[in-house]
């Protein structure tokens, strides 16, 4: 709509001229609101996704521009959710783009009083060293006179918020390293 700043464009005159007698639509529109564009309009792609909160599994459309998530909306195609999202699902753009998200590996040394930054590669190397060392030190060939082939020194908690493929690699790797205390929110 091209709104000229003439007296004829006063909202009250537009309202009286008809078409929108209650001034709920075009009559109330300002130049500013007329110029507003949906942020989804300039998205370069729309990626099909699933809401990460509860287990209803609502469909999400993720709008992407310049490698960034610009909007997340309900997927109308989903026979589960028919385009709807709840307050949490609707806030999931903030979940993935919010300012308090962490992007830096942090390290707290034993007895330390603060976080230190750590390089990801170094962290992976240190963690794998600790797994190997703990596994060796706590290995049990037998318990109560029976063969167990395990370590009671490595435990894990988490999985219900993760993908099936991730849980699969976790259970596979932990079992191969002999760790049995593997648990997730399904128990809690």
């Amino acid at each position, binding site marked *: 709509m091209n709104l000229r700043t003439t007296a004829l464009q006063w909202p009250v005159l537009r309202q009286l001229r008809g078409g929108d007698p209650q001034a709920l639509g075009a009559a109330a529109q300002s130049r500013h609101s007329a110029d507003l564009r949906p942020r989804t309009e300039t998205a370069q792609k729309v990626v099909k996704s699933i809401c990460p909160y509860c287990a209803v599994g609502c469909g999400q459309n993720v709008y992407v521009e310049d490698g960034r998530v610009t909007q997340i909306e309900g997927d109308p195609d989903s026979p589960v959710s028919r385009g709807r999202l709840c307050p949490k699902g609707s806030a999931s753009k903030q979940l993935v783009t919010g300012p*308090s*998200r962490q992007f*830096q590996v942090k390290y707290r040394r034993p007895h330390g009083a603060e976080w230190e930054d750590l390089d990801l590669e170094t962290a992976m190397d240190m963690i794998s060293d600790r797994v190997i060392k703990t596994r060796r030190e706590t290995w049990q060939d037998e318990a109560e006179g*029976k063969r167990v*082939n395990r370590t009671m020194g490595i435990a894990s908690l*988490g999985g219900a918020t993760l993908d099936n493929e991730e849980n699969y690699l*976790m259970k596979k790797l932990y*079992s*191969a390293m002999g760790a049995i205390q593997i648990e*997730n929110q399904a128990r809690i």
Partner: protein
Amino acid sequence: MAECHPVGFQWVMEAKAKGAKVIHVDPRFTRTSAVADLHVPLRAGSDIALLGALVNYVLSEGKEFREYVVAYTNAATLVGEDFRDTEDLDGLFSGYDADKHIYDPSSWQYEGSEVAAAAGHRDAQYSDRAGEDSSEGQQRSGGGQSHGSGGPSISGDPERDETLQHPRSVFQVLKRHFARYTPQMVEEVCGVPQDVFRQMAEAITANSGRDRTTAFVYAVGWTHHTVGVQYIRTAAILQTLLGNIGRPGGGIMALRGHASIQGSTDIPTLFNILPGYIPMPHAHRHENLADFVQADAGTKGYWGNMPAYTISLLKSWWGDAATADNDYCFDYLPRLTGDHGTYNTVMRQIDEGGGGYFVVGENPAVGSANAKMQRRGMANLDWLVVRDFQMIESATWWLDGPEIETGEMRTEDIGTEVFFLPAAAHTEKSGSFTNTQRMLQWHHQAVEPAGDARSELWFYYHLGRIIREKLAGSTDPRDRPLLDLTWDYPTEGPVAEPSAETVLAEINGRDADGNPLSAYTALKDDGSTSCGCWIYCGVYADGENQAARRKPGQEQSWVAPEWGWAWPANRRILYNRASADPAGKPWSERKAYVWWDEDQGKWTGHDVPDFQPTKRPDYQPPDGAKAEDALRGTDPFIMQSDGKAWLFAPAGLTDGPMPAHYEPEESPFENAFYAQQSNPARETHSRPDNRYHPSGDKPGSDVFPYVFTTYRLTEHHTAGGMSRFQSYLSELQPEFFCEISPELAAERGLEHLGWATIVTARTAIEARVLVTERMTPLTVRGRTIHQVGLPYHWGSNGLTTGDAANELVSIALDPNVHIQETKAATCDIQPGRRPRGPQLLEYVAGYRQRAGIDELTGTEANRR
């Protein structure tokens, strides 16, 4: 459901618009109650009394769906002569060991058959079969999740009486057991008036039968109890008697609270099971793979194929290294010796210390029972890895946790080395979630993760890769399971992300030529097939990612079979052969779902039939038939070894073959049903950091006179890691509060919007007071009982902060699944804020002293 699964609740409203009646049972009035036809507030922890009375109503009024019950359930099966009911033993079943607080279930068996325990228990009880001493630990390890895909196995042909008149028929046993669950008892125990109960009972029974079905929906309000599994069992008995299982509009729907909590049970990050509900092996002398699967091989139902499922799993993990000669690397699997669940792990961390702990996408310092113990466990480790989006409380407790404030811990004394690794979000990785209806849905990566953020797929793949590189060349046989592991996933993109689709293809499984399998029926026990999770076999059929299918809902039938993929075999309703009568015809046109098509000689319908496709309704198994071939054409419950729905569970449960009402671990009341106060097999762990309250008439119980229950809000998510850090959600629910009735506010002098301190023997927390008529005082056993409602989302970090409700909760567990009782316990509530610093410890110690609490309180076998 409207609060915690709002978008799913649209279907309840859709049904209501078509005439369905909605009944909401909940201690508090919620958004669900607001649109329900009937809201039934009840005392937290009394659901078995209510559900049991519904069972009794059905049985005593003859409202059961007789034809369904006779044909499809074990109602006609005879129970052995040795069985003694709670009616005979005043609240105990036969087989109870009062010293160990555990049951020997052998007297619960059917007449004329030997019942092996359930999938998860089978192996635990190997020792009995092998004449080995079985430890308490083995019996304690339980295996509730192992029933996720089916039940225990039985052998032989149990005796039946199709007239249901035999006094030891399950039907008559059930009738006697539930006879005392009367409307009067519901009023006495639950605080639900008899006329309200009758409205419920009449609505449910009037809406069940050939033409109509009733559905039950529940969440952790039923599971978080020391007798939680039996809550679900009571609902299962009721729904089975009414013929509401395996039929459209029926069922018992577990509303699960995390995007893939179903998936993380199917492909478990759980201690007691392997993918597809195969039990983790227990430690035994001289047990090999054949012994491990022996309990199943040759029995009836699909679990009869467990050798094929197990060997295919071992092949997918250890590939060419797994051969018939080495038992397919069965010995590479570590062995269990007891309950290694998360609470036992935490107690081991506190008591023994050392070792490492990975916490991935979970926040136990807020979200697990007895949050102090969670932090004390973490403070006693060598190293801790936390992977999350945000700086959650489980990452920062050493710096600013509640124990730092009270002086119980000093940062400089804590030796735990902590790694915090930022995690990638669902938009930054591809993969599948399994929703609450067992449906896998693929989410596609939209953008690359920024900075150090990585997926769990990336973390575990590269951790395994680095460990394997460091161990390469090792001659230590202990390293073979790691070095022989199939771990060659292709990586892609700028961060070398492993291909999630390649992992899905491994989960799906391959034939001898490496082609994707299309169904678990193709799995072999000769090592020629591999499959990472047998119940997911078919999700990658024809080399296509079936979980990524997105044919719009409006372009397909109401069952929507071409959206995502549901296990098993893309079936949307389990046991759906029960939607047809024994002859294979729909029970009614209105409720037609799958049926036998005589012309085509196969089962057909709106869904994938959950039955062998060409097995005729009149099929009778020949002698010597095994697995699914041993079930008749009228046996719809194909994972059960007798093909029947179980009204009485002869094996598989650790706390009784039928449900009985027991009071919670902490209750203001004596058990009105039996002399036995609480679940005799429940797991208690009385220790200085986990003391229990006196219950009922015991001295000191009046120090904690109120019931509290915990729950979620629409605007927050579990322990808050995915909601308290967002401004939109924090603005909608800005502060931790307690919900109380105007009557309780008057009794304790609590002011709306003021502060309250809530106290248990564990600790005291503070919350804003929300005085609301949504909380109803109830009359129970002639007394007024007040309940305090506590949302459990808060912690000290994030945009909205507050004390964690889980600080109050003790570790007292259901014996089947080791789940904690967060939904019903006792407390005191006082106006004002809680004491700070060391004064808090003194304040709580004063309560313990006044209540006379010691290490024995609440741990009795509880014969009063």
